């Protein structure tokens, strides 16, 4: 074997070896492990285990709390994603034509995304405080009794969704603005010649179709993001009141790291993965497509 070609042949392997090893240790291996554990009865600290087939899954689907958790997660996604998307697109369109204040607005709308998330949640907790916060003031203005929004079964989850929307609008705005500023001015002029001279027909003829790929991707990103909601529940409501904010990741966290029922937590993880999988798959396919088109 020639020295030079040996060197050339081995080089890429040695370059990718560290990444590959770490990928196996912290991504691929763990995923396989989770899958396996979800079919066993193993719990943290035990020395032996046996295979139990689908037992864990059966337990889960007979558990009201878990079903509630799935429902809440779905509800949360439904409340956050479309709203963030539409508000993001709307504000992006407004900001794009706002002249000199454009970068000011863009920055302001992006700031919530940049604040340390947990710190901002704690601030929201104070803002929503029924006797001390801004919420008390607002309720007084509109003349209603300031209820404790985070301690109310009906309002807790919508309030968490509301905070998430506040946090992520800026993200959507930035992505939409990147997409919108990619639309050439000629397209609007061509549209105008075709008779689209009012705002609504301009939007439906030019803006919406040309920004639809961004819309689609923002939709996927937001969905994946909302699926993973954890911090706000852990910091603000701990799943309560009355399990009304119990979501998948939080249930998984409790089972895995509070009750140490590793098998059940693993089964929840697998279900979580299945749920998020389709969206993540679309996201990865999108990114890969980007590679082919570059």
């Amino acid at each position, binding site marked *: 074997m020639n020295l030079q070609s040996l060197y050339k042949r081995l080089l890429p*392997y040695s*370059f990718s070896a*560290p990444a590959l090893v770490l990928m196996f240790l*912290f991504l691929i291996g763990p995923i396989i492990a989770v899958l396996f554990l979800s079919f066993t009865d193993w719990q943290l600290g035990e020395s032996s285990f046996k295979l139990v087939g689908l037992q864990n899954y059966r337990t889960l689907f007979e558990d009201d709390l878990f079903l509630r958790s799935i429902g809440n997660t779905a509800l949360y996604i439904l409340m956050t994603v479309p709203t963030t998307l539409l508000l993001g697109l709307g504000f992006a369109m407004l900001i794009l034509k706002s002249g000199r204040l454009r970068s000011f607005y863009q920055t302001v709308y992006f700031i919530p995304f940049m604040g340390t998330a947990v710190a901002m949640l704690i601030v929201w907790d104070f803002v929503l405080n029924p006797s001390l*916060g801004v919420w008390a003031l607002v309720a007084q203005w509109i003349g209603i009794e300031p209820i404790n929004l985070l301690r109310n079964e009906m309002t807790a989850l919508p309030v968490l969704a509301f905070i998430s929307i506040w946090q992520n609008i800026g993200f959507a705005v930035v992505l939409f603005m990147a997409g919108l500023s990619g639309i050439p001015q000629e397209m609007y002029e061509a549209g105008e010649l075709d008779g689209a001279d009012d705002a609504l027909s301009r939007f439906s003829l030019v803006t919406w179709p040309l920004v639809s790929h961004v819309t689609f991707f923002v939709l996927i990103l937001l969905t994946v993001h909302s699926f993973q909601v954890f911090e706000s529940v852990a910091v603000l409501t701990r799943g309560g009141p009355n399990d009304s904010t119990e979501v998948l990741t939080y249930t998984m966290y409790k089972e895995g790291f509070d009750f140490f029922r590793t098998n059940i937590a693993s089964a929840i993880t697998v279900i979580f993965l299945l749920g998020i999988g389709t969206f993540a798959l679309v996201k990865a396919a999108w990114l890969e497509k980007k590679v082919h088109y570059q």
Partner: protein
Amino acid sequence: MKIFSGIFRHLLLLTGSVFMLIPFVVMLSTSLKSQADIFSGTFSLLPGEWGATANYLQVFTKLPILDFMLNGVIVTTSIFLIQVIVALPCAYALAKFHFKGRKLLFNCVLWCLLIPPQAVAIPVFMELYSFGMLNSYAALIVPWTISVLGIFLMRQFFMAIPDDIIDAARMDGMGEVSILIRIMVPMALPALTAFGILSFIAHWNDFFWPLICLQDVKYFTPPLGIAYFKTDDSGISYGPLMAAACIITIPLLITFLAARKKFMQGVSIQAGVK
């Protein structure tokens, strides 16, 4: 008509801006108020009675908040540095070498992009437990040293660098490592910055993982630290709590404002929009 719609546009945008900024304003103003003022029953923007000194003093004396910040810095920079050291050579190999298994490796990277961090928490926890590494800086850093997003983004950028430049560097006498450090990295600096920003945002804000793997307050990162402060003080002293929130949020916001364009670019690069 035009003027009218312009006014309407700015009216809408300003309302939105107020809504976006309210929590920050409340945070700052409350951190300046005395306990009595906060509990006076009505909320006001400007402090009626100043308590700034007391609030901030209490944060610094009761809470090792500077240690939390330092932990945050240590953890995020170590994570980023190791991520770069691991991802760059791999991205270079994927972008510029033909070798058996390259496709497979790249597919692995793409599949790993699908994995949300919560999904691997249990086994990674067990791994760290069996190495006796829980409750340490290592526990915070090691699981995140592999960033498939980093590999992916850097590979994408490296692909765009012409092969001729790499060949020229070889002719000029550079080894592959030199090429990576002296040619590829400087040329891909914008992508590296964007990736750095993404990595920083993700790990500075991370709450889930530190919550799982840490017990010792000494290793707490800012999010965990402030959450700990909240439960610890049972929510009564809002002044110091808001002061703590200010302390960990404001440096970040200043950094963001200073490099606004770069941050937004970084975020849109991740989405493949830019």
